[in-house]
């Protein structure tokens, strides 16, 4: 029968989209090596990876939200708010029980819980009240940003000195020479990739994003899964904050500014479809690294004018995506 025509396209050719974002990454690394011999130094690599961790952790959650056809613009201010709250509570706790590990644990618990709760609020309003995600999270973005400004009285909320010293190693320390943020990011990325690809939850996210009605007809608990993506994202924001606070020991109205755009950009550069239906966590990780590297590369050299940094950044982001398209459409 007509099997001849069929077989030839049965196995996809060497899977180009799979390697495409990696190509972009490799090109950037090549440029970095050419620009500065210190680029591949242990210190620089640690710096870049560790600072990618915040956006990276958030972007992992964002991958699920976007895959399921949602969006969350509030993550940046949510991070600021959670960080502010965490610091506030830790300072209060220090006063009453003195600095020590318990205070850190309280802080971590607060951050995770606040993140989870914030994600839950977003999720429940989107799924139950049926408010367009873009508008709802635009609203909560303003709300959280305001709240942290208010908590900080317009200024900066800072962790007490002793606590800061005690908590510092969570960002700056590590094991086997690998910094904690890098470890946490890597572990979460792997878990995220497994969840997306090898669990029913990940599958259901893609199905909902692809066609909500079909998912519902296939007895996928659409609302529950969608809610779960926001809760997951919120919790990951909490984890990101836990790694972030020891870095600067403070939070202010400018904390996490534009993180939402960066996270979304990373997700899309990574090949996840903005309209939902397909997502890949490892792509997001590559996207985050690409974005981080651009900033790093700009600091490695002198450019015409610092005013033009933004322009170069813009061009590289676009090129990264074009490269991806041309190496093999990101499906």
């Amino acid at each position, binding site marked *: 029968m*007509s099997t001849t*025509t069929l077989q030839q396209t049965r196995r996809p050719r060497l899977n180009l989209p799979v390697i495409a974002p990696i190509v972009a990454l490799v090109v950037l690394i090549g440029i970095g090596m050419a620009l500065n011999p210190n680029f591949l130094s242990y210190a620089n690599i640690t710096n870049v990876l560790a600072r990618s961790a915040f956006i990276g952790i958030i972007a992992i959650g964002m991958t699920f939200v976007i895959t399921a056809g949602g969006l969350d613009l509030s993550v940046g201010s949510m991070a600021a708010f959670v960080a502010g709250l965490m610091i506030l509570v830790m300072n209060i706790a220090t006063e009453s029980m003195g600095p020590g590990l318990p205070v850190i644990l309280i802080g971590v618990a607060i951050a995770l819980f606040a993140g989870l709760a914030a994600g839950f609020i977003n999720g429940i309003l989107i799924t139950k009240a049926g408010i367009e995600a873009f508008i709802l999270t635009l609203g909560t973005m303003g709300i959280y940003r305001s709240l942290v400004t208010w908590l900080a009285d317009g200024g900066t909320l800072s962790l007490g000195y002793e606590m800061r010293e005690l908590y510092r190693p969570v960002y700056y320390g590590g094991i086997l020479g690998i910094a904690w943020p890098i470890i946490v990011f890597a572990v979460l990325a792997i878990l995220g990739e497994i969840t997306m690809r*090898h669990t*029913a939850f990940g599958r*259901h996210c*893609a199905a909902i994003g692809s*066609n909500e009605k*079909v998912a519902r007809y296939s007895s996928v608990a659409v609302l529950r899964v969608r809610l779960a993506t926001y809760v997951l994202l919120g919790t990951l924001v909490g984890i990101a904050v836990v790694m972030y606070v020891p870095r600067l020991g403070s939070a202010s109205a400018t904390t996490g500014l534009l993180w939402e755009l960066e996270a979304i950009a990373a997700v899309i550069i990574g090949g996840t479809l903005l309209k939902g*239906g397909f997502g890949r966590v490892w792509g997001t990780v590559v996207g985050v690294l690409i974005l981080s590297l651009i900033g790093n590369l700009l600091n490695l050299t002198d450019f015409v004018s610092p005013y033009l940094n933004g322009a170069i950044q813009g061009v590289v982001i676009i090129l990264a995506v074009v490269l991806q398209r041309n190496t093999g459409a990101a499906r």
Partner: protein
Amino acid sequence: MRDPILALDGIAKSFGPIEVLHGVDFALRPGEVHALIGENGAGKSTTMKILAGYLDPTAGQVLFDGKPIRFAGSDQAEDLGIIMIHQEFNLAEHLNVDQNVFLGRELKRGFLLDHKAMRQQTQELLTRLDCRADPGAQVSRISVPDKQMVEIAKALSRKARVLIMDEPTAVLTEKETDVLFAQIERLRAEGVAILYTSHKLGEVKRIADRVTVLRDGVMVRSDLTADVTEDDMATAMVGRELSDLFPPKVMGGAEPILEAQGITVPGVVHDASLTLHKGEVLGIGGLVGSGRTELAEAIAGLRPRSGTVRLKGQDLPAGQVARAMAAGLAYLTEDRKGAGLLLEKTLRENLTLPMLETFGRPLIDRKREEAALDRAIADFAIKAPERGMAVGDLSGGNQQKLLLAKTLLSDPDVIIIDEPTRGIDIGTKQQIYTLIARLAAEGRSIIVISSEMPELIGLASRVVVMHAGRIAGELAGDAVTERGIVRLAMGMDGHQKDGAA
């Protein structure tokens, strides 16, 4: 006779102010194949959705195992073993075939998905259905009939006590229909209750034990299939006697109007050539996946291609639909939902979309649009409960009629119709056949691509048959027979081109 497993008692259903079912009583018994037939828009799909928990009745009761039940949703019905295959495709296009088959009921090993088992079981199901689709292929990339087979596979993978199938064979060829029926037989023997709709009355006669006729939301009669003939069924559905299904054939002239030379679409169509004469109805036959749709789309400028297309002596550039349409060529897609209609838009917006420029510039004349819709509704007997409703809420057959009206709106000289009567009831089918004959008689030229053999034989004076992306041969006049077409389609008659390749 066994007791009914699932039954309806005095069911009424309204959408907004409009009642579409008026007191339906109905029962499904284990081990029985029950056919539900009726005109387009009679309420068959609605009845089925109520049975399977997708819709709540406005009045009346659903009885399961003799006890009244109110499904909280389709999941609950599914848990009870009530499985439905929808008339409209119900697959997530971004997901793979196996992912769709197991969607919502994934197989797991511990926490993680058992990809291997799911793929393997999918492969087994598809093999059982004689479907060649790759379980790992993305659904958006497989053909329409393959999608239908995947839907059937999905339903078969569930443990069904009641299997409800809404026009499963509309997009299938006879061969696949046979495969499906074999599965139905097997399930019947296992004691599954089967409800089934089709506009192909021959099939109903063949497979069903009992046939119930629905007209305008009311059950008009229910008989053992053995007691009624196809003609009885048709009469009961339409409410009048049906004369001959096919009008007399129109013989085309000798003047070629459309000439396609050496059309190749990489991977699917190879060096296909055909000529269409003025006033002729040309059929294209072939098995599913033989490349008929691709050939037609390539000619219509919807796909990249190599080779030349000449319309009325004028070359049509590849990949330019608008040019082809302006030159007088129209193509009616087989993929009604994906490529034919905007499901969230109204009838009017869909009807005039390809021809908006002719409805006034710069401003669209709403009145003329409404007039065009009036005409379409009358000409094609489109049954829409509400004029301003979204097309997605129309019954399947009525969507098809609207699509036909939309395609013919540009008043084309050459019309390529891919599966013209998919999902259309027998009464309207007859009207469409008459229409095609009339168009040909007016001097228009028509290509009909159809998987329904009788349709090709009844309409076309000449039939080109495709096999594996090539033109396998051509039949004309008395040589247009079922046997002839099948032999060519199966690649058994090594014809000129096939032999040369």
